[in-house]
């Protein structure tokens, strides 16, 4: 056991390299996905019925599909139609497309919960346009959706592990390759699990901080 552990510790740079890829893939998905999610939320709230219906069918459909199948569709399926991506593009675009659907729903919910009274009050105080959005609407959107976005970030991080199947060298891939070279399954996968856990705890802590800040604002 201690032998296994020392092998894992000797290769800690491999694990950190994998973790690094996991983290940047997750962060890129979080940023791009939530921005695109704003657009999707706008479409979901569109007064044009046809736009709203089509978007909501697409979003609900995507949320029924397993993430790995979307990866297969993009990486293995599309080349049949002559559309070819390298593994990084395929993996990252699958992450972004999939989670944009979830972000769209989260942001739509937050938007519906923005207090109309406060918006009216803001208008009465002479706020309008971008200033109204930045000072009155955006803080409410941010604080009310923070817990759900934090939760979604954890799902994103866990979904990046699926990308090992298309040989993207993220954290689980790193653990699997150490295990197959040195046959140290317990120590290597446990190390990966612990790293995922630490990231999750950090995300949860961040969300907690934001919630505290939200309470302070209200007080």
């Amino acid at each position, binding site marked *: 056991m201690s032998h296994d552990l020392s092998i894992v510790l000797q290769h800690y740079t491999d694990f950190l390299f994998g973790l690094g890829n996991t983290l940047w893939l997750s962060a890129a998905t979080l940023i791009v996905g939530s921005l695109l999610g704003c657009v999707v939320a706008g479409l979901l709230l569109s007064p044009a019925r046809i736009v709203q219906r089509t978007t909501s069918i697409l979003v609900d*459909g995507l949320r*029924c*599909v*397993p*993430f*790995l*199948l979307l990866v*297969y*569709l993009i990486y*293995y*399926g*599309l*080349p*049949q*139609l002559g559309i070819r991506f390298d593994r990084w593009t395929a993996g990252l675009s699958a992450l972004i497309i999939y989670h944009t659907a979830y972000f769209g729903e989260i942001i739509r919910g937050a938007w519906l919960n923005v207090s109309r009274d406060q918006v009216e009050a803001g208008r009465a105080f002479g706020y309008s346009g971008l200033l109204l959005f930045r000072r009155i609407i955006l803080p409410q959107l941010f604080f009310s959706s923070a817990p759900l976005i934090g939760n979604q970030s*954890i799902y994103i*991080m*866990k*979904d*990046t*592990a*699926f990308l*090992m*199947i298309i040989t993207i060298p993220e*954290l*689980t891939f790193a*653990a*699997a390759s150490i*295990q197959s070279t040195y*046959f140290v*399954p*317990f120590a290597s*996968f*446990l190390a*990966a*699990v612990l790293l*995922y*856990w630490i*990231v*999750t*705890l950090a995300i949860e802590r961040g969300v907690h901080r934001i919630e505290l800040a939200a309470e302070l604002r209200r007080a």
Partner: protein
Amino acid sequence: MADFSTLLHGALVTAAISGAAIVCGIPLGLVLALIRWRRIAGLSSIIALYVSILRATPLITLALLVFFALPALGVAISASTAAVLTLLLNTSAFNCEIWRSALEDFSFDQLEAARAFGMSPPLMFRRIIFPQIWRTSLPPLVNEMTLLVKASPAIAVIGVVDLTQAANRIGADTYQPLPPILAATVLYVLLVLILVALQRIIERSVRRKLAV
């Protein structure tokens, strides 16, 4: 046609393995939640740690850990047993949180009243608590089931020929990956819709029973 039966077989494997994990995971989650709710010293904090770690672990990493580490520790295990165990470990942690939140929200007045009537804790659980918390927990439990089915392709990595793996193989054999992937997607959506429909049916029958 042969391809379609391969795909259907894969769908049955996915349904059976997820089903086994769900059937065992719901009561297991309830037991874990009860231990946490009663704040049984020692055990309660171990479960809190278990839940916290399991919720942060990708299913695919967990599947690899279970499948490769158990034999290394001297426990022989087949791929499909490892798959059920993986899904069970994962879903029981999420179910524990669902049951626990229902228990923590349970009305204190009712517990007091039951105690005043001299009910023992097991009787109180059977007659008062459980009949109410399962109804409030049903929607989040079904939601967790759908999440589990959607994450279940992770078990393909340890060699289980589930729906995803079946689609993958057909694609590799026929050099036409697109049709099997799309067909598998439709089958997954059907599995998810069946779960949601079951929830609706149960809720409707409960409502009817309560109305009479």
